């Protein structure tokens, strides 16, 4: 089971994702440079958080044109599991691999803190090991994480069960107070129709060790390990 962790200029959670995959989960992990056109035979692809190209212009707007994104698209089209975390989520949206967009947080401030998210769907490679409705305590760290899409798009996402993670209170109830950035319908993460591409604003890779305040994020990465091992990519 091998993770490919894509490095864009300005990525800064690449090493965090690597640490979680390699040292916490004990799996293989390799960095893939944004100028590379292949993913080195990885079983799962991580687009990490950070500030690709400084987030100048728009978060993720420039990174989506990197050569590596062609390979990521092919990998996704072939059904391979792809996860975009924070900036990586923004890149996937800009690239059209996921639907919607992210606006500035409603209070216009960068916000770094732990929040609660509810696992809404467990039939994706990044939530399969979780139980439906399970509440995870995960950090967020973003200035532009307010999920937005046209009403009909959001309805379609809900109808197709593509909302994978939703902000909530500690007890799992979805309230405005539990929504840190003003995301539509408290959406914290979504997947594509095919369900193999997942993006979310919170940082599961920052919550894989209790020493860091929460181990709840492990289940996200363990899900894809389980899914891949099942398909024989041990």
């Amino acid at each position, binding site marked *: 089971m091998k993770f490919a962790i894509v490095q864009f*200029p*300005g990525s*800064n*959670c690449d*090493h*965090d994702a690597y*640490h*979680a995959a390699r*040292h916490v989960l004990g799996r293989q992990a390799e960095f893939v440079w944004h100028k590379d056109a292949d993913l080195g035979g990885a079983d799962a692809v991580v687009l990490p*958080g*950070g*500030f690709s*190209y*400084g*987030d*100048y212009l728009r978060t993720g707007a420039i990174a989506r044109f990197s050569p590596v994104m062609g390979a990521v698209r092919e990998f996704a089209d072939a059904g391979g599991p792809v996860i975009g975390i924070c900036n990586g989520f923004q890149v996937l949206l800009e690239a059209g691999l996921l639907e919607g967009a992210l606006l500035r947080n409603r*209070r*216009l*401030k*960068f*916000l*770094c*803190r732990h929040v609660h998210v509810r696992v809404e769907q467990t039939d994706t490679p990044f939530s399969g090991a979780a139980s439906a409705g399970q509440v995870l305590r995960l*950090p967020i*760290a973003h*200035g532009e994480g307010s999920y937005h899409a046209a009403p009909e798009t959001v309805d379609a996402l809900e109808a197709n069960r593509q909302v994978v993670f939703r902000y909530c209170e500690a007890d799992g109830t979805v309230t405005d107070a539990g929504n840190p950035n003003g995301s539509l319908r408290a959406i914290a993460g979504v997947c594509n129709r095919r369900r193999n591409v997942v993006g979310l604003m919170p*940082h599961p*890779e*920052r919550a*894989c*060790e209790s*020493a*860091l*305040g929460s181990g709840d994020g492990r289940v996200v990465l363990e899900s894809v390990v389980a899914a891949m091992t099942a398909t024989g990519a041990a």
Partner: protein
Amino acid sequence: MTDQAAIDAHGLSADEYRRLVEILGREPTSTELGIFSVMWSEHCSYKSSRRHLRRLPTEGPRVLQGPGENAGAVDIGDGLAAVFKIESHNHPSFIEPYQGAATGVGGIIRDIFTMGARPIALLDSLRFGEIEDGRGGTRAETVRLVDGVVAGIAGYGNSIGIPTVGGEAAFEPGYAGNPLVNVFCLGVAKAGRLAKGVASGAGNPVYYVGARTGRDGIHGATMASAEFDEQSADNRPAVQVGDPFMEKLLLEACLEVMETDALVGIQDMGAAGLTCSTCEMAARGGTGIDIDVSRVPQRETGMTPYEIMLSESQERMLLVVRRGRGAEVERVFDKWDLHAVRIGEVTGGGLLRVRDRGRVVAEIPNRELADAAPLYDRPTRYPAYLDEAQRLDLSALDVPPDPTRTWLDLLAAPVIASKRWIYRQYDHMVRTNTVALPGLGAAVVRIKGTGRALAMSVDGNGRYAWLDPREGGRLAVAEAARNVACAGAEPIGATNCLNFGNPERPEIMWQFVEAVDGIAEACRALGIPITGGNVSLYNETDGQAIDPTPVLGVVGVLDDAARVLTRLFPEAGLDVVLLGDAAPVAAGADGLGGSEYLKRAHGLVRGRPAPVDFDRERALQRLVVDAARRGMVCSAHDCAEGGLAVALAECCIESGGVGARVDLPGPAGPDDGFGVVRTLFGESPSRIIVSAAPAGRDGLLALARDRGVPAAAIGRTGGGRVTVSVAGEVVADAALNTAERAWATGLARHFEPAAVRGSAP
């Protein structure tokens, strides 16, 4: 003959100019005049402070790099070094809060990775004018500055991916016209492979890499050394815009280059840009440097050699590379879409030679330029205000009728209240090393691949220093070190940022000298060497100087990261133990002088801060570190602003509902009605509140006795209230969530959603 106007415009005194002509043996060219003026500015030459800084202790078994390089370094075991430094960006942050603070962060980060260290933590020490208007409202001007400064630090630090894990923020009238923005950065390097800012080996190529040079901040260095006044408005074009993305590329590329052995020396271009980096590197190497400015990548057209040499454009580095290894280095930078440009070479001559398309425009003996700057022994005078300010007559004051209300009001004081509004704008978790989140005490980051962690605290108190500069310096060291010890870490090194007014005024100079001596005494007594720092003088606006503000940054090491402590009582049913003197009564030791209590309850800044007894302080800090190592304590928090009562409340706030009930001896001091106030709110130092399992309590008390540290079990954790009695009688009592609300909203309530100007470009 260079005309007088030009000399004055360059801020050179007649003596300095004579000195310059002596060194050159002729009149300077305009470029040379510019070069001397920036190198001999206060900012670059430390001409007023250097002779005093020599008194700071800079040696110790762990010191790998003392003052003199881009940053200091101490040995933290496992073959690793902690590289750290603190820098001020006060003036630029007043002119343009967002960009001023942002470029300050960029500058200190460059100082750290220039040493070959991977930066892993930032802390910010901030001071502004009052944010409360005294009528329950808010001062919009302060909010505008805080909003911009915090957004600027966040904008740069978050983007480059270095967590801002701690800091401090204070609000005093003295900073209204001159806020202080001091930023501390720490990185980790292989102990044997620290890079140096040295140019050696005649014939080795000199490379320029990073952002192109524009007309930014020309004379920024001299500006930062000139007293602020209305005219400063004209300095506005000197504002620079930070480019964290460029610096992120530089950071990664430089660290990659350092992995090879192709690098001889490296230095960032900070104040006085290309001038400072070239002549300092050559001076350190005992060599010369020969560069051609026409090869320097330029952002604007028609730049003169003078402008190119003095520009302070951000995100630029100067490298000296081994002959024949240039291509290798260029390849690394190309990978990061940066272009390393060869602009000259190291020479044997000891001359800084600057050419423009081959034509020599400046030729200066660089040892003299770098090191022969005039040093001043500026006159000092005991300040006229001091005797009166130190006089504190409590009999003239009313005893507060309801200590609980005073207590809650102190918890809401902006300097004490939660700084959540600030640190939540900082990514304090990136790099997944943060094992003690901001707001819980010292900042603690683990060192992956070892079992260790580093604790850091920046601390200072301008009010103490104004009332007693020497004691203010001593207290700043003691508290920063104590904060680190409270995390369970042994303090091993310190850096300092000395923020003062105009040193040409004898009373200001006296404050400076006293504070430096206080810091020196404290560092000697506690065995904490100073490995570097920064001096920021001329912090005045329209003749109004800031409070003298020495800020200390102390670094400590925890051998077992799992043993880290925070201020929080983890659970109910623990014993609350006070390490240190519960009721210090010695005259002047009661800690009311200069206290937050006096300021808030009586509107007074008076008296003398309680002096530190360093034998006591050292014993206390060692005790808490040992107790933490042995797992004898579950939490630790020192008594600072607001005294014991505030510290106790802080142990309960955010603990998840764990209150406490304690009974203190006393009332302390003379029978003047202020006994309870002294006990509750006195700020005498060397006191730490810990929690311990009942079974371990006696062991802890015994250990304290062995170490000669007074210690007493004062109560129990648990319940939904925080209750303090003195001599068995309840004097302060509040529901925990009431205390929490006061503390949580004290600062945050002043901020509306972001102002447009404060927000990122």
